[in-house]
């Protein structure tokens, strides 16, 4: 059973509830899904410019059913990224909100969304297992895409539904973009169980979000650390939302303080809090902290999901068997994705990982078998849940002419710029914020004299923090 081929079995149950309160049954979802894909031949590459709405979900399901391959694109990407993606991947079709791209006639229309045939009529050679392609960790700054197989998405949705104990009477309200793997996984795992998705583009800072949540009786939502910061600011502890049954957290590590605070709030309210861990490279989820341990193991990301296995590898490459020793986290499971694509010519590459993922995260395991992330092997940060490679960010800025290096912590990238005035500082922030599609407050520029380097010419990042904060 999966969440796209077998949805008719839920018949008249509600599948999707929209912003305006309109609801669509599973039967209606299946019909709209198939109608969206009628004109699209199997193994076509389709850019699915998606928002949290009925039309995007229907089209996504439709393309999977037809075995066409959607690339999930965030409608907010900038024009440069739009043209880079189109040029690198040459999709045969684009399904998007009308007006997203200039077009005189469409092949199909679903409410305010259109299906457009591009000039790239010829199909690309493609691996038979390739199901969907996702921008890397939600970051829109790179044309590098994660290739997920049919087995990947079915397996992960099944595991998630199992450990979260999703019920057919659950109603998940969206809080993250559908093109972001965490947001997508919530939609998929709920459709698998015949539950309903309340699809909205409204954010937590919208009055309408909270009224929709109450009116439609949402039972669950998920959030990256930043969303939990918002919930704290909104005094979630004082809110009364009796329909809420469980909430999840992933997309970066919650500070121990915030984890403790929310585990207490949720315990008092009778809401299950489930902290999770994952990566786009593992479809979505790899580990979860069972809610019973939310307080006693606060700060930990828990145990492997059903069907997954984890181990730690030391610097010498040997497996670590003792508790509380840090090593690189290796994950194995059916949800480990095929690999990356950099352009259309990689679509036929097939599986490059064989079910094993080197996560790049450094972790330790306690005597009870619970894992805790302690750092990262490579230089990247999570900004609002999006993984951003610091070396890539540096390269982008250097190319624009800024003599700079990047460091910092989650939710705050510091850009140390040589000989920088106020105007350059503002321009650099605007550029990188636009390029990555992330709010400018995630970036801080710091003017420096010269970049400190070791004798061998390596940037001394620790020295930077020491000298300039």
């Amino acid at each position: 059973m999966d969440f796209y081929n077998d949805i008719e079995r839920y018949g008249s149950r509600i599948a999707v509830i929209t912003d305006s309160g309109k609801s669509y049954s599973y039967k209606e979802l299946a019909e709209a899904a198939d109608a969206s894909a009628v004109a699209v031949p199997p193994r076509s590459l389709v850019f699915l410019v998606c928002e949290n709405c009925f039309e995007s979900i229907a089209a996504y399901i439709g393309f999977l059913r037809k075995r066409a391959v959607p690339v999930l694109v965030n409608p907010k990407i900038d024009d440069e990224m739009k043209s880079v993606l189109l040029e690198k991947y040459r999709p045969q079709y684009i399904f998007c909100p009308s007006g997203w791209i200039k077009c005189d006639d469409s092949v199909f229309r679903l409410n305010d969304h259109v299906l457009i045939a591009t000039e790239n009529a010829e199909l690309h050679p493609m691996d038979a297992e390739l199901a969907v392609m996702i921008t890397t960790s939600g970051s829109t700054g790179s044309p590098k895409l994660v290739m997920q197989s049919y087995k990947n998405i079915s397996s992960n949705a099944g595991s998630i539904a199992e450990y979260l104990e999703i019920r057919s009477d659950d109603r998940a309200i969206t809080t993250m973009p559908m093109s972001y793997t965490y947001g997508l996984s919530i939609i998929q795992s709920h459709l698998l169980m015949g539950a309903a998705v309340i699809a909205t583009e409204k954010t937590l800072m919208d009055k309408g979000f909270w009224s929709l949540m109450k009116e439609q009786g949402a039972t669950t939502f998920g959030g990256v650390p930043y969303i939990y910061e918002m919930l704290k600011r909104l005094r979630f502890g004082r809110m009364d939302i009796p329909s809420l049954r469980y909430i999840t957290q992933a997309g970066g590590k919650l500070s121990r303080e915030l984890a403790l605070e929310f585990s207490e709030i949720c315990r008092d309210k009778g809401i299950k809090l489930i902290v999770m861990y994952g990566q786009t490279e593992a479809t979505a989820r790899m580990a979860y902290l069972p809610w019973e341990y939310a307080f006693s193991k606060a700060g930990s990301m828990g145990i492997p999901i059903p069907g997954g296995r984890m181990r730690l590898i030391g610097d010498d490459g040997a497996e670590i068997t003792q508790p509380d020793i840090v090593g690189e986290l290796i994950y194995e499971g059916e949800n480990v994705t095929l690999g990356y694509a950099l352009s259309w010519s990689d679509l036929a590459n097939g599986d490059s990982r064989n079910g094993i993922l080197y996560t790049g995260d450094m972790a330790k395991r306690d005597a009870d078998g619970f894992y805790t992330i302690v750092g990262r092997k490579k230089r990247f940060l999570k900004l609002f849940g999006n993984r951003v490679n610091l070396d890539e960010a540096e390269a982008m800025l250097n190319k624009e002419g800024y003599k700079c290096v990047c460091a910092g912590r989650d939710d705050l990238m510091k850009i140390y710029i040589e000989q920088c005035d106020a105007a350059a500082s503002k321009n650099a922030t605007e550029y990188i914020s636009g390029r990555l599609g992330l709010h400018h407050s995630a970036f801080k520029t710091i003017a420096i004299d010269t970049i400190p380097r070791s004798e061998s010419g390596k940037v001394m990042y620790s020295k930077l923090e020491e000298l300039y904060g």
Partner: protein
Amino acid sequence: MTNLEIYNNAFKEAFEVDEAQLAGLEYQGIAAWDSVGHMNLIALLEDAFDIMMDTDDIIDLSSYEKGKEIMAKYEKNI
């Protein structure tokens, strides 16, 4: 600093805008005033005025002008 100056500075800092852009500014009217920007604005206002806003006021603060009305509830007349 007057209350108006404090109020304006919070907007200018949160959204990196000039004084001239403040009138008529609305939530989601500019790229910087999204949900993340909104949270930053609330944090700046709460710190600058030393107040704790209610949930309803936080999500009601949908424009520069509306915010002035809301501040009055916390005895900050602008």
